[in-house]
């Protein structure tokens, strides 16, 4: 091997996007979070929005650690609460581009209530959900996306529950952009992220990602490469797929994984009410008294 071939690149075009002093990251070999994070960094660059105006918020879990690696204002919050925390930022600083980057357990299980309500309100927020079908950080327990029958640290006899179909859920509760890609489909994933960043309103991107340690091993899928191979060989892109048919089970070899940008609609995003023409009522007056016989102050809920 000549000297040139052995040279390691001393710089990378995404260097400024990561906190180099925090690397190496904690992620396992074969993990899909790294490629997803790379796509996110690339998408921020291509979004046309200055990096100073990007904010990344995450919750707890392996994916939650992404907020600690990207070199933008970033908040690594409590388990499940990334979305409402991000809502606060987005509402008071509508000029910022706020992305919630977190995992399936964090966003959909413990944070599920916030997820559905943020989508319903159409908060101006991009949610990127890395779905690896289990709780990876704590050692591979079952979660709300674990396929029925799959083995997990808390489901040694096979998961007894039916999982969520995330794009179906997101669309049902009001997301204006819904996509699903995998950690292998980096170009499409990055493009979906750029599209989401250019939209106003609540967007949702599911990123299917290998977790060889937590999910692959107990379910005999093999290493991350093997999981990626399943993504490669079985993925079908269908932007017009019926969302309720998008269920997933990596263990089944007969089932296609349907990917695509399924939803892209526009509806007004949430803004707090503002009264620009005179106060709602004269201050100090019991504005309801005349109509209600003066009992306007009654009725504690």
């Amino acid at each position, binding site marked *: 091997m000549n000297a040139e071939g052995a040279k390691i690149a001393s710089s990378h075009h995404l260097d400024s996007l990561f906190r180099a002093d925090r690397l190496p990251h904690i992620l396992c070999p074969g993990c899909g979070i790294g490629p997803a994070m790379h796509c996110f960094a690339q998408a921020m660059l291509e979004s046309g929005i200055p990096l100073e105006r990007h904010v990344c918020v995450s919750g707890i879990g392996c994916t939650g650690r992404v907020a600690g690696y990207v070199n933008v204002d970033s908040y690594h919050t409590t388990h499940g609460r990334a979305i409402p925390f991000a809502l606060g930022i987005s509402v008071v600083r509508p000029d910022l581009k706020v992305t919630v980057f977190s995992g399936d357990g964090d966003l959909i299980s413990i944070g599920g209530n916030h997820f559905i309500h943020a989508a319903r309100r159409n908060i101006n927020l991009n949610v990127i959900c890395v779905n690896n079908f289990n709780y990876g950080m704590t050692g591979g327990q079952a979660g709300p996306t674990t396929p029925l029958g799959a083995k997990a640290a808390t489901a040694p006899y096979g998961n007894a529950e039916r999982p969520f179909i995330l794009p179906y859920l997101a669309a049902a509760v009001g997301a204006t952009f819904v996509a699903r890609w995998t950690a292998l489909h980096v170009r499409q994933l990055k493009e979906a992220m750029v599209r989401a960043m250019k939209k106003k309103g609540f967007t949702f991107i599911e990123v299917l990602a290998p977790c060889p340690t937590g999910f692959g091993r107990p379910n005999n899928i093999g290493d991350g490469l093997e999981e990626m191979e399943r993504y490669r060989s079985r993925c079908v892109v269908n932007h017009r797929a019926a969302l309720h048919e998008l269920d997933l089970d990596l263990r089944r070899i007969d089932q296609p994984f349907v990917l695509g940008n399924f939803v892209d609609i526009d509806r007004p995003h949430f803004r707090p009410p503002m009264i620009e023409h005179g106060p709602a009522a004269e201050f100090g*007056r019991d504005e309801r*008294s*005349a109509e209600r016989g*003066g*009992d306007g102050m*009654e*009725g504690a809920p």
Partner: protein
Amino acid sequence: MRTEIQIAGFGGQGIVLTGLLLGKAAALYDGKQAVFTQSYGPEARGGASCANIVISDAPIDFPLVTRPDVLVCMFQEAYAKFRPGLKKGGMLILDSGLVRPSPMDASAPSIFATRLAEELGKKIVANVVMFGYLVGLTRAVSFAAAEKAIASTVKAKTVTLNLKAFASGLDQVRSKAAR
């Protein structure tokens, strides 16, 4: 001097507003101390409604009404519920059209507040008619303060009507005194 006044009726009668007017008149326009509280809970919906006012020249420490000096009842159920709590020798005031008192209270001052309000064209100001009667009888607040409280509290377009209602209640005290 600490005076405790309780106004009781049913939800929708304007009981709470009456209490608020009384307290506001004392606290903001008579330079006295006043605390106003109301009953909370399921009973506030359509059932008994109760406004409690403490008026005093000195700072009011304990804020709640325990043994009212004055009890106004605008509903039979309220009379049954609150009458036993009235301080011995305290003043009972009734809406004649809505409360039939027991014989021992037959001589309690009473007016047809609801009927008088209807005569003014708006049944809903019965509470303010009663407010006028209450103020006339007890002098708990000055007339001027009561009128200021009305003018600064009710919807601007209903001030005249409410001041008339107040005067109507007050007149009942004057005419009774004249009799």
